[in-house]
């Protein structure tokens, strides 16, 4: 019974691993470029929560890269197989929609973990951040990656063309991840934008993730965990409902 899931997961991992230059090395490079530029400009001027700016920035960049790539993994896999028609190979076998869901989400989380590890390893060269509570780091990475992986499934199922998916990515995922306190503390924002940021679930994912490094955060990590967990459950439920209905996959 479980074998369909296992093979589909293996296939999804092999798919991104075979093109790891694009799927892992490229996002690591992007994150390093952000780090080089912002730390060059701001390292001397800024401390956040009493932490040197470069150190503060690293966890945010790690998490942002992980989240964006979790989304990219499931969404691009689905849209590609839909556009080329090869999605039929996973629709013909006896694979349940639940197995289908978990295979894509777990693959997205694994890609998120690899990208996170890659960014972290390269940025050690710039600054070595503390890791006071590694269990929080892993927990937020898995929940955040899972949420974005499931959201990527929704986008990949919904989109009929690559440009529709790009729209989803550019107008939803990018703003959500960029305006989430990766580059700043919430408290440095004007009150209005602080309020707006509190409606962005990605803010909590990044804030909780960063707590695992420094033991300080904008909001208590338990609150962030509740938001990240609820996001994961809600997006998962929506994705499972779509898969169950066969929306755009089984006519």
């Amino acid at each position, binding site marked *: 019974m479980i074998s369909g899931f296992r093979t589909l997961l293996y296939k999804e991992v092999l798919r991104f691993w075979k093109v790891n230059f694009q799927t892992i090395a490229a996002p690591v490079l992007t994150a390093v470029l952000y780090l080089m530029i912002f730390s060059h400009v701001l390292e001397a001027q800024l401390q956040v929560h009493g932490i040197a700016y470069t150190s503060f920035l690293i966890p945010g960049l790690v998490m942002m890269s992980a989240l964006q790539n979790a989304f990219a993994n499931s969404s691009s896999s689905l849209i590609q197989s839909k556009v080329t028609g090869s999605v*039929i190979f996973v629709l013909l076998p*006896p694979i349940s929609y639940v197995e289908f869901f978990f295979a894509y989400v777990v693959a997205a989380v694994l890609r998120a973990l690899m990208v996170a590890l890659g960014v972290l390893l390269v940025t050690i060269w710039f600054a070595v951040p503390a890791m006071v509570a590694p269990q929080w780091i892993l927990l937020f990475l898995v929940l955040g990656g899972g949420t974005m992986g499931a959201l990527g499934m929704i986008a990949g199922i919904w989109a009929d063309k690559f440009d529709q998916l790009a729209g989803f990515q550019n107008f939803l995922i990018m703003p959500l991840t960029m305006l989430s306190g990766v580059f700043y503390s919430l408290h440095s924002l004007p009150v209005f934008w602080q309020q707006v940021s509190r409606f962005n679930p990605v803010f909590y994912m990044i804030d909780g993730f960063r707590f695992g490094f420094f033991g300080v955060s904008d909001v208590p990590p338990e609150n962030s965990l509740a938001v990240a967990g609820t996001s994961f459950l809600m997006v998962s439920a929506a994705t499972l409902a779509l898969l169950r209905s066969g929306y755009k996959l089984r006519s």
Partner: protein
Amino acid sequence: MPFAVAVERVEKRFGSLLALAGVSLQISEGEFFGLLGPNGAGKTTLISCLAGLSRPSAGKLVVMGYDVVSNYRAARRLLGVVPQELVFDPFFTVRETLRIQSGYFGIRHNEDWIDEILANLDLTGKADTNMRRLSGGMKRRVLVAQALVHKPPVIVLDEPTAGVDVELRQGLWQFIRRLNRDGHTVILTTHYLEEAEALCGRIAMLKQGRVVALDTTSNLLARFAGHTLALRLAGSAKLPPELSARATQNEGMWTFRLGSLGEIEPLLAAMREAGCVIDDLRLTQADLEDVFLGVMQSSDYRKETVP
């Protein structure tokens, strides 16, 4: 005897379009069954419903006793489908593709069978080649291989020889015939009617989502049968109107469909009387193409053959 496939009053609606308008048919185990019809007749829709790619709006489909909706796991494990579109996953080699497809069906360590399929489809030399680098005909054969990894007792081939050259087509049919002899039920849709005539024991013809003919190939041929007489008249002579009404004309050739050979004599006599001189004459036995055209022109055929 249990049916390999049973289709009961299946309807499929796409918006206002009724793609399948109540299709019923039963296919016994071990049959080589043909599904024919013009484009848009509903062949692929029917296959999609059988394979679980589409959900029927009404009716039910059963594979080897298992309902394809309520018992989809068992039904899909017993069914192998070669899709019509030439699709492939560009990330993998031929062998990876087949290993992965085996895994989807819960089969691990399938190497012996994979090697056997590859050999039979003349793909052994391409096992470690990326799918992207294969020619169209090779990709088509990999699709056949993918449908067979789990040794399904029921095999559905949706236009499997489109774009495959003659030599490979022969090889492919030899292999499929062997699978059929070994007990696999084969369901085939094709545009090559001579292929269907040579391979299929029984044939259903679909038109606008309905079964308009369902009989053994030999009965279909016998019923429409007879022969066709094609002739060309010398010079600018014309057929008398009572004869031309019975014939169809194509590039100067007049074609008569004959119920029996006895009809030839009076026909020629009538022509002689009218002073027509015959330049060229051919007598041919009706083939499936004539049957097909006949059925598609008169959709009342089903009432005569299906009780």
